[in-house]
């Protein structure tokens, strides 16, 4: 009972994972450096909570910036070094997503050189005829906006051709070649980056003050910017009216050209990401405006003063790149005005909370407890009789669980929704449920097995959640499609079935644990102890079955109310059914004596891949009513899980057969492990 190869090998895995996290940092030529000082963290935090409307909901800039960066860059931050002409590198620079957006707004000449676009397939660059020096050193490569820009038209052409072909039914999006996927991905990434810039785009334009008319409006200026024109919008329109019947009058100067440009801005809208919540008569409009939306009211002299203030503050910030204090004051002013507008519209409510939620990052913090919890549990197995270690492991796991639950609750509050509305939510919920169930079992039987599984399960699922969040690069609080918009069914069916998933996964861990312990430790471990693991596996399977079956049928009842059929043999429905069938078959096989402990635990371990298939894999098939998303990293992770789980089972089976059973003598000590005395 002193040494368990199972646990020591886990240490090796952990060390290997840590080593894999370090990576080289790409250099950026220092000559383009415009911003000399780092951003003020307090200001960044303020700006991260700037309210705007994107993809149909009002959210903080921080959320938009983060998911945009994940999508484009595939990482949570942007890292590089400044390399001067002598080839000397500065210390590593790390930009948060919000800092990147601020640079992209205010220092675009610098930000165009950031190593932004993650290119995983060099053939994509060949496809859009983009020359790159040097061979590929890593499995991926970074490209800056400046480097990518020459290929923009080519990229659009290629992406357009793919979309066109699929639209004509000549091919299906799920059958895209790797290069085609790369081209679509890169095009979408480019659009995301350009949309971020379009929020402020026209504010950077300069309009010439030419001719008496304009000079009268803007004395002693040779050029003005958009916010100045908006401020003077009413008078500007008056001028246009005045000169309307004599456009050839030299006094008109460039008046009509400027008017044309303003009209172009109004037509274009610049509202993919919208900063201006309509006020006054337009307050009932649900869709926010971009800069284009403000132009017409401004020209009519009816713009809301708040909107003009937002435009002015943003413009001041844009032109004050060299004057840090002026820049920062303008940004703070911008934030204040934008908050005032959102508040007036009654849409500011959850923005601050959401911004705080991402700053607190509670589920990430849970890792700070789960991982030490895992450490303590590992020590616990070296000194099995140390009650302090048991208590420590329990406490750490419980605190970790508390963080995950708090995270889930916050998400519910922010969205006014039950805990699960999309795939990302399932990770957090399943982590919380799995850890909770394992800890509950531990409290009942105190065998230390459940306690060992809890922090591992929690940590792994949370890490997967974080990987998925970046990989997917989509807002995880997105608005729901109409069919999902039912808090009742989200709360009942979706929650229930995910409890079933969680129990299935945890049950698979119990089964695997038994298999490995019973195979390798058949001559060391106490039979009563091993039997207790089987009983736990049975219990969690029964628990999982109850929720999986009820959840699956509830799903049918929901479908009956929304699509008119109870069961359509849709891929996701089938996945859920497979879990139920597997669990029911397992319990009946055990009851009828077809399988004993050995078969039972192998089967329980096999339910893990079945759950993974239903939970994730069916979404990757890209078919059916429930197909929500597709991502390649997820596919790879699934393959890994299938391989790992089969490998563990196979190892267990081989060891079971290969290690001869010693004489049937009682195990060392005779006392069951973990039985509290």
């Amino acid at each position, binding site marked *: 009972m002193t040494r368990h190869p199972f646990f020591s090998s886990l240490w090796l895995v952990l060390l290997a994972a840590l080593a894999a996290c370090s990576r080289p940092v790409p250099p950026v030529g220092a000559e383009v450096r415009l911003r000399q000082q780092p951003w003020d963290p307090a200001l960044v935090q303020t700006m991260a909570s700037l309210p705007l409307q994107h993809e149909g909901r009002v959210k903080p800039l921080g959320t938009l910036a983060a998911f945009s960066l994940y999508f484009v860059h595939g990482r949570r931050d942007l890292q590089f070094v400044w390399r001067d002409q002598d080839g000397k590198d500065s210390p590593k620079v790390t930009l948060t997503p919000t800092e990147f957006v601020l640079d992209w707004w205010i220092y675009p000449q610098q930000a165009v050189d950031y190593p932004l676009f993650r290119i995983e397939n060099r053939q994509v660059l060949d496809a859009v005829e983009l020359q790159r020096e040097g061979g590929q050193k890593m499995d991926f490569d970074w490209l800056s906006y400046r480097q990518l820009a020459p290929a923009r038209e080519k990229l659009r052409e290629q992406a*357009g051709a793919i*979309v066109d072909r699929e*639209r*004509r039914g000549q091919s299906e999006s799920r059958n895209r070649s790797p290069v085609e996927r790369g081209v679509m991905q890169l095009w979408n990434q480019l659009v995301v980056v350009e949309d971020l810039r379009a929020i402020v785009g026209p504010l950077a334009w300069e309009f010439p003050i030419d001719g008496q008319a304009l000079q009268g409006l803007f004395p002693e200026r040779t050029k003005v910017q958009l916010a100045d024109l908006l401020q003077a919008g009413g008078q500007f329109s008056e001028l246009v009216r005045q000169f309307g019947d004599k456009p050839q009058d030299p006094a008109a100067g460039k008046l009509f050209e400027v008017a044309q440009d303003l009209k172009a801005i109004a*037509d274009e809208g610049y509202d993919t990401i919208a900063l201006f919540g309509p006020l006054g008569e337009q307050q009932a409009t649900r869709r926010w405006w971009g800069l284009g939306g403000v132009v017409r009211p401004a020209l009519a002299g009816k713009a809301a003063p708040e909107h003009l203030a937002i435009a002015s503050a943003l413009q001041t910030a844009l032109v004050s790149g060299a004057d840090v204090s002026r820049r920062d004051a303008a940004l703070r002013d911008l934030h204040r005005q934008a908050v005032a507008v959102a508040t007036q519209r009654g849409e500011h409510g959850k923005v601050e909370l959401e911004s705080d939620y991402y700053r607190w990052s509670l589920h990430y913090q849970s890792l700070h407890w789960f991982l030490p919890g895992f450490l303590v549990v590992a020590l616990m197995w070296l000194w099995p009789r140390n009650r302090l270690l048991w208590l420590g492991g329990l406490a750490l796991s419980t605190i970790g669980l508390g963080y995950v639950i708090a995270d889930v609750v916050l998400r519910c509050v922010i969205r006014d929704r039950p805990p699960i509305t999309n795939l990302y939510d399932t990770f957090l919920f399943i982590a919380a449920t799995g850890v909770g169930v394992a800890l509950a079992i531990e409290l009942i039987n105190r065998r230390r097995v459940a306690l060992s599984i809890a922090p591992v399960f929690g940590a792994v699922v949370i890490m997967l959640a974080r990987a998925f969040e970046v990989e997917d690069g989509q807002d995880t609080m997105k608005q729901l499609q109409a069919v999902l918009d039912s808090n009742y069914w989200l709360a009942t069916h979706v929650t229930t079935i995910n409890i079933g998933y969680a129990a299935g996964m945890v049950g698979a861990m119990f089964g695997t644990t038994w298999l490995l312990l019973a195979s390798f430790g058949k001559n060391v471990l106490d039979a009563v102890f091993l039997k207790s693991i089987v009983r736990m596996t049975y219990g969690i399977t029964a628990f999982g079955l109850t929720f999986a079956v009820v959840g699956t049928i509830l799903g049918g009842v929901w479908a009956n109310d929304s699509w008119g059929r109870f069961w359509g043999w849709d891929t996701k429905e089938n996945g859920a059914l497979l879990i139920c069938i597997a669990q029911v078959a397992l319990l009946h096989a055990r009851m009828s004596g077809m399988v004993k402990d050995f078969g039972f635990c192998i089967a329980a371990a096999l339910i893990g891949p079945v759950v993974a298939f239903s939970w994730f894999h069916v979404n990757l098939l890209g078919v059916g009513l429930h197909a929500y998303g597709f991502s390649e990293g997820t596919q790879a992770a699934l393959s890994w899980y299938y391989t790992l789980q089969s490998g563990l089972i196979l190892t267990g089976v081989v060891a079971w057969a290969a290690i001869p059973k010693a004489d049937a003598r009682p195990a060392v000590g005779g006392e069951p492990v973990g039985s509290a005395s």
Partner: protein
Amino acid sequence: MMLRSLLPNVPFLALLAACGDSASTWSAEREVAAEKRNLQWDVSTRNRLGLPEMGGATPQPAADDAKAWTGTLPSGWEALPPEPARFRHALWRVAGQPDTECYLTVGVGGGLRQNAQRWYGQFGQTMPDTAAMAALPAITLLGKAGHLIEFAGTYSSGPVPREGFAALLAFTVAGDRVDSVKFTGPQPVVAAHRQAFLDLVASIRVDTAPKAPTADHAGPAPTAPAPSQYEIAVPAGWAPVAGSSRDLHYKIGEQTEFYLSGMGGDLRPMLDIWRSEMGQGPIDEAGLAALPKVSLLGTEAVVLDQTGDFTSMTGRKLAAAQSLVVAGKQGAAITFVKCVGPAAEVAPQREAILQAIATIRRKG
């Protein structure tokens, strides 16, 4: 144990044997109210299968084209030159009311069903059943007995729905062919001229005089299609379509039409309509962004190039067609060039068409 493991197959085999083919016969007779089916009997094969309008051929017999129709002009009305290409075989309006229009259409195919559905649809209504149609007030048109329908509400025949509109429609049916006189305009105007309309309908006759030059008609100078505001350099072989209400209207090859037009509103809904003509669903954001761009009249325009089976908004069908649309937003409106024809005709000309589009300029 052997038996037990074999057992699961037994019910399967038994049930498989029970599955067989049955001889085909009709189900028992079911009685349904006629209004639920609204059956149209004795419709010709071509009309049943929606083929008469194929290829844009006008359905009326050639003899009708040579004829002219006339009626006794009510006071306060004016006659306009007929536009047979738009199925206006005689055309009038209330003087000084450009919103009004009254025209005679003869010999349109499709039967009452298709026509009436269109008429009612234009006012957002459903066609009543045949019995109700038969109960409509009676009129006589060109010596045949027919009925009068009165509409009021939002009229959506053109690109922009017009509220507060009314229409009076007198029609007769003979087989698949429908003759009608339709008077549309703002509701008060139509109401005030109801009797004038009925008198006009009763007076319509085949003009025995040879087809007179339109200038001889009473009233103001004829409003021939306005001279185009645009100019274009087209390749040899494109034939301008005379008398068209559309700008830069050309015929390319046998069946391909090319024209420039405009419409109020946003680009996206229009793209969706053009897509729906080719049996495609609405376009999404990514699809929209990925459309190729060209310049049309100095502004950016998207190119929507589709092949497939074409069904126009008016039901015209063309299999294996190509629809090439270049559309750009010009202020509040959309300007677009549309070119539709058999893919075999359009595809070889594609570059030439795009080049021609690039040459479109405003006159002056």
